[in-house]
């Protein structure tokens, strides 16, 4: 199926993913953070779908959103929420963390600017074969040993 309103959905999903990511670290209530993380993971899954990688998207949903995050929530819900609400949101290492984040951001910006030259054709080719089958061929053919 040909994608519809690609640009809009791309920006919408990206914004969703990033905003949820921000919510993960700013919410005081760990359950809310976990839910935001799930939202972020689902946004990523949708982005994979837009990249014609439905298998990766499906695995993302099953493994991360459906499996791992459920266990996360499971544990978080059993801890004493009131206690965590009273604790400080950020610890003393926030300066170091901030520095790392800025460095990483700078790297992204650098790659984005430089990358324009490195990847001249920025549109993705529609795969001839079903993407899922290609994944299977690669996994169980060429890289069987590594598996």
């Amino acid at each position, binding site marked *: *199926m*040909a994608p*519809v309103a690609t640009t809009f959905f791309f920006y919408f999903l990206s914004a969703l993913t990033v905003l949820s990511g921000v919510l993960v670290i700013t919410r005081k*209530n760990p*359950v*809310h953070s976990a*839910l935001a993380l*799930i939202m972020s993971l689902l946004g990523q899954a949708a982005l994979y779908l837009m990249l014609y990688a*439905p*298998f990766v*998207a*499906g*695995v993302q*949903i*099953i493994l991360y*959103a*459906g*499996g791992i*995050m*459920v*266990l996360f*929530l*499971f544990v978080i*819900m*059993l801890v004493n929420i009131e206690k965590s609400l009273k604790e400080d949101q950020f610890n003393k290492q926030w300066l170091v963390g901030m520095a790392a984040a800025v460095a990483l951001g700078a790297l992204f910006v650098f790659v984005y600017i430089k990358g324009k030259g490195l990847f001249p054709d920025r549109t993705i080719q529609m795969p001839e074969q*079903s*993407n*899922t*089958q290609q994944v299977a061929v690669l996994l169980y053919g060429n890289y069987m040993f590594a598996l």
Partner: protein
Amino acid sequence: MLDYITSYLKSDTTPGSAGNLFWAFVYIVLIFLGLSVAVIAMNWLERKILAHMQVRLGPMRVGPHGLLQPIADALKLLIKEDIMPAEADPFVFWIAPLVVVITAFTVFIVVPFGPTHAVTDMNIGVLFMLGVSSLSVLGVVMAGWASNSHYPLMGALRSSAQMVSYEIAMGLAVVSAVLMTSLNKEGTGTLSMIGIVQAQQAQHVWFVFKFFPLGLIAFFIFAVAMVAETNRAPFDLPEAESELTAGFHTEYSGFRWSLFFLAEYSAMIAVSSIAVTLWLGGWMRPFPNALGGETWDLVFSLIPGLIFLFLGAITFYSTSRMPKHPYFRVQTLGLGGFGAVLALIGLLLLIPPVRDRVQDIFWFCAKVAFSMYMYIWYRGTFPRYRFDQLMKVGWKVLLPMGIGVLILTAIAGVLF
């Protein structure tokens, strides 16, 4: 514009795959309405069938034979006071039923009611269904936690543990069915829901009978796991009424509760559709091989219409047996009208173009209905498992069985 609309009708693929957004939208609306009607009908049918299993009549007051009971219930739920516990987490409490309902409904976009009757045909169809339905556990956990109360929390813990455990057995059973699709010349299987049914068509066998008894065992594993996955009796521990009052939705009332109800039944229909698609030949009519040929095709294509006509006739018969007192006039008219609707649908299904287009859907729904009947039957027969026993069944019985079946299927696939 007209061309755009009619282009799908001529194509032999789903509207989603054909890129026909209009029809995709029409299907989404149809599925949404159809599901709501199905859930309402299931509500009535479950109460009626269960009642007759238990030597009682079930709802009889609202409408003839209680036909309007589910509608009355729905109205009652809508106008009920919406209670939120004071200590609840409002946002999570609010969003939990939505998560459950949305996931339960989303899976239906890949359910193939016929070779062309699905919203879209994803090449990861089964994976998508399993993935999305596994998200519904999130809603359950959120509901249980947000209620900030002991019983719901225990219900949520039970249900998430249960769903996570049974998903594995379920996945293994699904994989063994998917493995069977790859037994063709090219050796390429498919995860697409439509592709799986077409593979059964090509191999001239429902997968439940393939490599007898391997297919049957895989189907059995799936059938048990799907009951557990939807938290129904005898695996209804999360909402075990006698233990946890109502489990994760104890604190919910009115409309929010009805969303859980809607989601539960949609999820039942969804997993039943997976089972039907994977093992019971999807939209294929029974006996395509033994009773093949044009004559039999015609006979089987007439069955849907005849069944509806028969149901209409039964309804007319009970209409004629209604008491003649004026007090019952509205009820008699209503029952007669219901019979007329059934008969009309029956006649409509006998018209050749409609017949050809719709009989796939009928057979699919009939198989799903059979599965739903089994759900009710279990509920009328079995006591409830205890939690440790439930886990034992999941991990010590179904999981090894699933692995065994998977390996044996692979071996059988290579040998035969």
